[in-house]
């Protein structure tokens, strides 16, 4: 059938975006009337989206199918000994499997909508061709990442999306905050990348000789091995090595997905354009960390120790990030903290062994979070500030944006039947089911439950502050208005997805993209009670937000309230960024100064000292060459005398001292 055969052409999706990158990057500056090539990027990404959707449709029609196409790049035969007794090879190729098809939908749909939205949102900015070219390159790399069929290729694209993120955070590079945020994002994720790379090394070592996986290196480290995909190849490998490898992979994922303690870069990454935040720092790239954990859990396998570490990191980050969102005055940063928190849910689910549930939340989250960002972008576009306390009363002037943000907020809060409810509820009930076997998961389950309340509270606080009341709190703000159809269109499509994406999983075909998620989910009395509890908590959060902030009210803590100190800690982001900065300034800068001192004074000093001493010697020795023949003969005679003295006096004396003859 046509649709199923399309999987072999999956490589075209990233290639199309590379084409867009090249066209926009080189021709863009000459196409002023086409938004410097922005329309080219929109059209090509539209084609890529259709292709991606068709490929995903093909996957839906053939449950559990894997299409792996690759070409060998480097092949080293083994000689039966050494680290790789069977040799190893490096391959490049595409793997279309259910979860990569799911990711194809997420990345290309959100990517296309964001590019379209950017046409209007970015119209007053300079460097549009750079913007669209970099976004195209990002989409190419992201598609390459989700289609990668081996760990090395995955890492290659992983780095490429990282560098695109760096470019786009620093898009307004004249702004010092943006330039330093870009550097921070790059450096912090680099910590994770190094851990990931070490993890790859450890896995190579673990699988070089172990059991059925002995040929893993020889096969190019392919994810799919044999005819049994989604069965970890961990059998026979050294469990200690596997645990270490899993922890290192978790480090990589924590860097990319902004999990504690590598979360500091994501809120600062909001210095980039809002569209970039929506696409890269909410819907797709930051989800790559979760996708890595999913791929690793499906193909490589985690040990119990790894799973506990992942659950701990995810569960803690969920609550930790949500608390910081509660007090933040910046509309984009509130959503950014929310992203960290939601990514924590996904990590938690993958760690507890519910990979498909985690990916399900990734899928719904991508849509409602992109929606929230784009709606916030429309607000920022209209009023020119990100400060929630200056906004207000926007509901009357921006009804479409208001509705979009409302839908996104409800979805994020987990109110049925919006998308976020289904996936978040699935995470909570799945986790609850494991508590009997893993009582050590209890604290993280409670954190996840507590976050439900906080999530609803902080997002509706932002919602009421921006849209509630009758007029802006800052009168100097320009009068807001809804954007044109180019921005409204993506908002509406995403609103639709934020409402309905959750129930897609009940469609039999679609559920093939999340094999084993259990369709339709079986609801027991416990599940329904849990759902009722989480919806109740979310409702309580919304109610609290309404009482404190609704209808233009502004809740101010009394200055003598004991909560003020907590508020300060939260606003200062638990001093973690300060600690990192202090570490950088004291320790790293101190080491750098020692190195600088060594370089400047010890190494250069030795070289320059030698040079100076030779120059001085030269000045003195030059005087000897007087040109007067008699001086030279005097030297010759003096030399002769020295030789004679040495030969006739000193040498015999030395010999007699040592007892020679």
């Amino acid at each position, binding site marked *: 059938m046509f649709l199923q055969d399309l999987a072999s052409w999956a490589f075209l999706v990233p290639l199309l975006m590379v084409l867009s990158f090249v066209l926009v990057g080189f021709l863009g500056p000459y196409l002023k009337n086409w938004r410097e090539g922005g329309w080219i990027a929109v059209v090509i990404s539209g084609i890529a989206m259709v292709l991606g959707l068709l490929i995903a449709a093909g996957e839906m029609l053939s449950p559990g199918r894997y299409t792996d196409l690759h070409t060998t790049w480097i092949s080293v035969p083994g000689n039966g000994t050494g680290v790789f007794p069977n040799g190893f090879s490096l391959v490049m190729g595409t793997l279309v499997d259910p979860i990569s098809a799911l990711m194809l939908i997420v990345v290309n749909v959100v990517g296309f909508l964001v590019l379209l939205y950017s046409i209007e949102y970015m119209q007053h900015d300079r460097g549009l061709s750079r913007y669209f070219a970099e976004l195209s390159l990002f989409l190419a790399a992201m598609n390459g990442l989700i289609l990668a069929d081996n760990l090395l290729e995955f890492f290659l694209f992983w780095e490429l999306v990282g560098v695109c993120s760096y470019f786009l955070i620093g898009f307004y590079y004249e702004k010092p905050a943006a330039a330093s945020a870009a550097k921070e994002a790059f450096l912090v994720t680099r910590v994770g990348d190094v851990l990931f790379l070490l993890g790859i090394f450890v896995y190579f070592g673990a699988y070089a000789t172990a059991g059925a996986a002995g040929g893993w290196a020889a096969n190019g480290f392919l994810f799919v091995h044999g005819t049994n995909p989604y069965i970890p190849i961990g059998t026979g490998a050294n469990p200690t090595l596997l645990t270490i490898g899993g922890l290192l992979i978790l480090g990589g994922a924590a860097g990319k997905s902004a999990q504690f303690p590598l979360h500091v870069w994501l809120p600062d990454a909001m210095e980039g354009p809002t569209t970039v935040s929506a696409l890269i720092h909410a819907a797709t790239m930051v989800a790559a960390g979760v996708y890595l954990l999913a791929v690793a859990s499906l193909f490589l396998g985690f040990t119990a120790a790894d799973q506990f570490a992942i659950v701990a990191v995810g569960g803690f980050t969920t609550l930790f990030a949500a608390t910081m969102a509660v007090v933040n005055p910046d509309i984009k940063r509130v959503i950014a903290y929310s992203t960290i928190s939601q990514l924590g849910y996904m990590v938690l689910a993958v760690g507890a062994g519910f990979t498909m549930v985690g990916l399900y939340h990734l899928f719904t989250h991508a849509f409602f979070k992109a929606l929230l960002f784009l709606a916030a972008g429309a607000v920022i576009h209209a009023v020119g500030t990100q400060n929630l306390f200056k906004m207000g009363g926007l509901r009357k002037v921006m009804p479409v944006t208001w509705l979009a943000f409302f839908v996104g907020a409800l979805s994020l809060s987990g109110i049925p039947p919006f998308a976020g409810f289904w996936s978040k509820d699935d995470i909570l009930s799945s986790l609850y089911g494991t508590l009997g076997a893993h009582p050590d998961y209890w604290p993280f389950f409670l954190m996840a439950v507590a976050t439900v309340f906080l999530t609803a509270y902080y997002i509706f606080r932002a919602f009421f502050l921006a849209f509630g009341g009758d007029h802006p709190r800052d009168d100097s703000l320009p009068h807001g208005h809804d954007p044109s159809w180019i921005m409204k269109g993506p908002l509406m499509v995403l609103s639709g997805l934020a409402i309905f994406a959750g129930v897609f999983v009940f469609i039999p075909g679609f559920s093939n993209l999340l094999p084993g998620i259990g369709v339709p989910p079986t609801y027991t009395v416990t599940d329904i009670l849990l759902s009722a509890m989480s919806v109740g908590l979310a409702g309580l959060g919304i109610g609290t937000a309404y009482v404190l902030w609704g209808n233009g009210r502004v809740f101010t803590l009394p200055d003598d309230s004991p909560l003020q100190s907590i508020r300060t800690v939260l606003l200062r982001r638990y001093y973690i960024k300060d600690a990192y900065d202090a570490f950088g300034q004291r320790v790293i800068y101190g080491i750098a100064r020692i190195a600088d001192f060594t370089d400047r004074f010890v190494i250069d000093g030795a070289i320059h000292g030698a040079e100076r001493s030779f120059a001085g010697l030269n000045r003195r020795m030059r005087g000897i060459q007087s*040109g007067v*023949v008699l001086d030279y003969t005097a030297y010759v005679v003096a030399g002769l005398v020295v030789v004679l003295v040495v030969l006739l006096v000193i040498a015999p004396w030395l010999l007699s001292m040592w007892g020679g003859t």
Partner: protein
Amino acid sequence: MTLDPFTTAGLVGLSGALLGIGLFGIVTRRNFILLLVAIEIAINAAVLNFVYFAAFASNPSSGLNGQSAAIVVIGLAATEIAVGLAIVLALNRIRGSINVTEATALKL
């Protein structure tokens, strides 16, 4: 003939004295011609040694080696004098003086 220690000491002393006189002249004379004369004296110290020790060689044919060397050195000395005198003439023509301490152009 055998080596007589006293005669040997005297001849070596003589040649050493000749060398000393020559070196003294080389270092102290400023007149180019006297410098050449001093060099000749120093060279003759070496020639004397060659000739003397060749006379006591155990194998008469190898004694010829020393005498040949003496003749070669005498020839070389003559050649050197020829070149030296040519330099003296040229120096006199250029500078109007044959004082070697004034000819200091030979330096970088």
